[in-house]
């Protein structure tokens, strides 16, 4: 069967191909990525179908699915693809676009965690688990999530209340700002 896409539908696979530096049309749907994916069992659309959605220009579905967020970035798919498509990079590209457009509703907790992680890094330079977990629990309305685990980590000296300050945070924040500015240019 021959499928012809109109110009508007072509724009999406072209954009993703540009982002990953490969032609996504190379995928011939063998399903090897799905077969090796450790998280496929919990995805509503397997990885190979996400690739197909991109090929067909079905942007809305590709950006709104749970699959892109459930990808654990283990890169098994990428390493096994017989056509050398960087499937994990496709997932990253879709996540970047979804973040830019605020399309994070499919997996609110995963996306919140990513956001808070980078907020903590941008502010303090390093991840402070206590701060990150505290804020995450507060914002997901589960203040006591992992409470016992936290106590255990604390008793083992693995959670610190304070960390020695990092020098050069101004420089780091400027990097974050310039990255943001270059993002704004694009959109």
């Amino acid at each position, binding site marked *: 069967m021959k499928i012809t896409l109109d110009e508007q539908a072509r724009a999406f696979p072209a954009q993703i191909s540009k982002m990953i530096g490969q032609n996504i049309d190379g995928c011939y749907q063998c399903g090897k990525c799905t077969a090796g994916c450790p998280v496929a069992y919990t995805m509503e659309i397997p990885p190979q179908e996400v690739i197909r959605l991109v090929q067909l220009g079905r942007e809305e579905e590709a950006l709104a699915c749970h699959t892109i967020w459930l990808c654990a970035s283990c890169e098994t798919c990428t390493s096994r693809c017989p056509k050398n498509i960087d499937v994990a990079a496709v997932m*990253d590209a879709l996540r970047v676009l979804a973040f830019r457009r605020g399309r994070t509703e499919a997996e609110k907790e995963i996306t919140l*965690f990513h956001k808070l*992680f980078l907020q903590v890094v941008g502010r303090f330079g390093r991840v402070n688990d206590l701060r990150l977990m505290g804020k995450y629990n507060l914002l997901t309305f589960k203040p006591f999530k992992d409470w016992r685990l936290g106590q255990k980590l604390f008793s083992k000296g693995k959670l610190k209340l304070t960390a020695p300050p990092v020098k050069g945070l101004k420089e780091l924040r400027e990097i974050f700002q310039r990255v943001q500015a270059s993002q704004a240019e694009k959109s």
Partner: protein
Amino acid sequence: MKYAYYPGCSLHSTASDYQQSIDSVFQRLSIELEEIADWTCCGASAAHVSDPLLPLALPAKDLLKAEKMGLEVVAPCAACYNRMRQANHKLRENAQLRQKVNQILQANYRAQVKVRHISDVVVNEYGLEAIARLRQHDLQGMKVVCYYGCLAARPQKIVAFDDAVYPSYLDRLIRTLGGEPIEWPFKTECCGGSFSVSKKDVVLKLTHDLLDMAQNLGAEAMVVDCPLCQFNLDFRQEEVEKQYRVRYALPVFYFTQLLGICLGLRGEALGLKKLNVDPFPLLERKNLQF
């Protein structure tokens, strides 16, 4: 031997035992690690899903410092190692990208600094023969599964320093230490990595599969060289047991902890008490409690 050292965030918190054992073991091996001053986070699993430039700029910022130190970089965390190697690779291959990132850094990073995983340095650079000469104790045939995980194996061409599907560097180390590494099929399967907090059920399922296989094959312990894997397999193990109604009580060591024991270092110097699953009954059985 001297390296620039990039510990990464975990080694200052949830993996402080890994750090302790690295400090002690490297001192014993006379390998000098000079910490990169005021290093900051590599962006881990959050940066590359959020932006195309951030996961390159964050590692490059500290690699630039290492370039000035004139040393190769050693990273003990598989995630940091992976992000630094991937950033270096992309920046080397793509001049346009390099230019963009250098504008962001307001610097001129050439992406030539070599980044090495700490296991690579110990096993391949320092070498197993030299380790065998320093060995004071022997693992007494301890049956161990070596778990390598994803991030030091894939993408193969960029990060792997051994076979990417079935690596053996930790197995060879364990054999050198007098342990019995068990052949098993899950060496480079995924533990769920960074989903430990935001998608815990996935981590419990994946670690359950790993622990189950290890137990079925008669493992007495698991050995890892990644702080994320260790956290999921050790600190989440009780939850896995509860959710799946199983019992493992399988100690999950950092490779530097077992190495340290065999080099004659004491438990306190290796952070053994910081492990969640009590390793001491096993160590006692093997006459290795010092």
